[in-house]
């Protein structure tokens, strides 16, 4: 029973995107600052008292989704869809039923509604679908709270000055995205899955989509370059010289020497000769402060500093936002408007010992003017610390990201840094070598961003033109050109941003899907055979669907809906027109596609179980196998079946076993990772006499003794 509702009569029902946000909003709006928590069927909601009674109820992200009008999964094309509760369309979403029932009950006694979900496309869709379907078509009469931080002040303001209606342009844009993505995803994924199943009789989920296909295509293009790469030899020459009693390394004027003959000639000419300082070039340059973080640049910086994947950074930032410590993170803005209150934020930050001096320094400035970037977001400013301090000390990842956001925020108000570079030309028998130095003349903003500044100083001694130097050694280095680096999750995210495919809210998740589907593996993203086949099939039978240009055009059209320059219906009709002939073609070639994909799935499954080369026979492969008698899993060599090798090792029978794809650093044997629910994953080397195991045993023995 909803006891509160029965007692209190009419109230305003506020809908939020997540439970944490509901509690923050309810506490902020309650006159006593402490809303009452209630619960029904495990669904929390909050009762706050203000100018009138308020009930705040959360969603848990999307409660509705796009689904096929017909039931069943084994057919395509599917062009008719409807919005349904998620529990009706997804296997793992049973809990959504209780959520919707509670919201619907609370809506009955409400006399006004406010959508307080995050102010972006996804948040707007969440609020809209709940108001329309769970609250009985209240979407047209509902007000909208718009805020960028979950601080009390901003929440009260956004409640008092709530927008009179929902942002229907944003909702239309969101609906278009979900519906177009559904049309692409369901039809292409079903076509591929059904083709593979009909050919092999085995079921394997194969998916692709409007953004997934073009993203995988980037990776495939890079993978092809890497796998076809042939290195080219070149040489570099260095000379060690002595200046003021110290030895310095200098670089030959030509960084790359193309032929061995030329390289040998230079070395021969310089060996045993002394040099003279021919010229000293000194350059000073200013380094402007960085721009504030938008989500993409925060993800990129967190990856390079801490190694966090974009998805992890996104979820840590979301956590900090829900704790009201930073502003809304899913923003593409690099602007910090004065309305956020620079001074108040810095004053609050000065209460943290680590930041007190730095914040005081900024507060002493006559004006606070942030350096801003070009990118804008109509709904939110760049990411900034709210000035609220953690209620309990932050630890680990949350501490790192908060510290990064705080320091970046302070840095954008700093003065430009001044750097100096020195290039000393050393002439050795008419060949020039460069001695390079660099130093910081004025720290400026670098002081605020100090732990995260990646630039080492190279200090040179006092030298003057004409000064003789002694050449201690001339070194010739054999080198080879390198293949372009594989993408990592961070550089792929940047590539997607540059190509303008996907949205800031979905890109990180999309990358994760490529891993989940086993189209790619490893941190330095390598495409699997399955990933190759998916792209080959799409390129061959529906090239338009993996075209980066067409995907970008579609993105632009969907963005125009937000500006009222495009209609959702037009885009949907065009999407169906594009898909119809493609799907017909896929159906016609189903056998051919099925064979191609089935082979790839088989190979992928085999690859998943292959651990590496057998360290005993060096020709077979170690694989995860299952005993016919006991059904237990173990590791065995493939040469066993040829009667050549009997190598086998036991495996833990519980948890997931995943080949690590790299050899043990102690003994070079292949390794696997074991993942057990609720436990930290651990890596396993099969070598019983691995030196690392010996070391570990000794450590344990010493610990036991002490």
């Amino acid at each position, binding site marked *: 029973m909803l006891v509160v509702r029965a007692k209190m009569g009419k109230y305003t029902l506020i809908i939020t995107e997540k439970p944490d946000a509901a509690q923050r909003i309810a506490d902020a709006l309650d006159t006593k600052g402490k809303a009452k928590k209630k619960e029904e069927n495990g669904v929390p909601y909050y009762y706050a008292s203000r100018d009138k009674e308020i009930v705040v109820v959360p969603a848990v992200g999307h409660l509705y989704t796009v689904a096929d009008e017909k039931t069943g999964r084994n057919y395509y094309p599917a062009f008719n869809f409807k919005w349904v509760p998620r529990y009706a369309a997804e296997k793992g979403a049973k809990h959504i039923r209780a959520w919707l029932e509670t919201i619907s009950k609370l809506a009955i006694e409400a006399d006004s509604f406010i959508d307080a979900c995050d102010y972006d496309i996804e948040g707007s869709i969440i609020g809209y679908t709940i108001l329309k379907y769970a609250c009985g078509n209240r979407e047209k009469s509902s007000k909208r709270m718009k805020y960028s931080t979950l601080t009390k002040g901003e929440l009260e303001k956004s409640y008092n000055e709530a927008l009179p209606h929902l942002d229907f342009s944003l909702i239309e844009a969101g609906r278009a995205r979900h519906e177009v993505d559904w049309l692409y995803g369901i039809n292409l994924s079903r076509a591929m899955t059904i083709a593979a199943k009909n050919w092999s009789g085995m079921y394997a989920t194969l998916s692709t989509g409007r953004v997934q296909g073009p993203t995988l295509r980037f990776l495939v293009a890079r993978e*092809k*370059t*890497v*796998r*076809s*790469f*042939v*290195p*080219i*030899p*070149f040489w570099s020459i260095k000379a060690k010289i002595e200046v003021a009693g110290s030895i310095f390394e200098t670089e030959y004027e030509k960084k790359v020497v*193309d*032929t*061995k*003959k030329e390289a040998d000639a230079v070395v021969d000419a310089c060996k045993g000769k002394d040099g003279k300082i021919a010229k000293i070039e000194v350059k000073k340059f200013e380094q402007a402060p960085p721009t504030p973080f938008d989500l993409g640049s925060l993800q990129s910086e967190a990856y390079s500093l801490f190694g966090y994947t974009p998805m992890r950074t996104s979820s840590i930032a979301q956590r900090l936002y829900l704790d009201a410590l930073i502003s809304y993170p899913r923003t593409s803005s690099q602007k910090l408007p004065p309305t956020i209150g620079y001074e108040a934020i810095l004053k609050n930050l000065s209460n943290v010992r680590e930041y007190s001096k730095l914040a005081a320094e900024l507060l002493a400035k006559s004006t606070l003017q942030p350096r801003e970037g070009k990118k804008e977001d109509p709904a939110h400013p760049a990411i900034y610390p709210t000035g609220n301090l953690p209620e309990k000390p932050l630890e680990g990842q949350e501490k790192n990201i908060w510290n990064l956001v705080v320091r970046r925020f302070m840095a954008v108000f700093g003065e430009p840094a001044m750097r100096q570079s020195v290039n000393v030309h050393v002439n050795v028998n008419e060949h020039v070598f460069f001695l390079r130095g660099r130093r910081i003349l004025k720290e400026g903003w670098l002081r605020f961003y100090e732990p995260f500044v990646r630039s080492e100083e190279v200090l040179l001694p006092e030298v003057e033109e004409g000064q003789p130097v002694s050449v201690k050694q001339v070194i010739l280095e054999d080198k*080879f*050109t*390198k*293949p372009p680096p594989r993408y990592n999750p961070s550089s792929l995210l940047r590539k997607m941003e540059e190509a303008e495919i996907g949205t800031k809210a979905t890109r990180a998740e999309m990358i994760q899907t490529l891993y989940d589907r086993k189209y790619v593996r490893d941190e330095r993203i390598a495409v699997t055979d399955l990933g190759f086949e998916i792209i080959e099939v799409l390129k061959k039978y529906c090239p338009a669907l993996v075209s980066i240009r067409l995907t970008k055009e579609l993105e632009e059209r969907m963005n125009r809906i937000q500006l009222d320059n495009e209609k959702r219906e037009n885009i949907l009709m065009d999407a169906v027109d594009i898909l119809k002939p493609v799907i017909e073609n896929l159906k016609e070639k189903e056998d051919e596609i099925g064979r191609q994909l089935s*082979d790839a799935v088989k190979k992928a499954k085999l690859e998943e179980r292959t651990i590496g080369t057998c360290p005993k026979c060096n020709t077979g492969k170690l694989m995860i196998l299952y005993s016919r008698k006991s059904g237990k899993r173990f590791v065995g060599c493939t040469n066993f079946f040829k009667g050549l090798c009997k190598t086998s090792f036991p495996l833990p029978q519980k948890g997931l076993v995943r080949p690590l794809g790299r050899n043990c650093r102690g003994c070079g044997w292949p390794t696997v990772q074991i993942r057990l629910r609720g436990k930290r994953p651990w890596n396993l080397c099969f070598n019983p006499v691995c030196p690392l195991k010996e070391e570990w045993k000794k450590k344990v023995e010493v610990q036991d003794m002490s």
Partner: protein
Amino acid sequence: MKCKICPREAVEKGYCELHLKAYEIVVKKYGLWNKALEISWKEYLRQIAMNPLTGEWAKEVTEYLIKSGEQ
């Protein structure tokens, strides 16, 4: 017809699309190796087959060329 190296369909010169591209690169880069080191085609193949920076498909093509003696 199958590719000389993998089970894919051959498209030209007996190679599949992927190995054909690698073959073309192997052939093209010989000019630069010859200029840099003045080495024979055979020696070039031997060198790139051993080089850890050579891509997987280029290596497969190279090993095939060494074994078969094809140009």
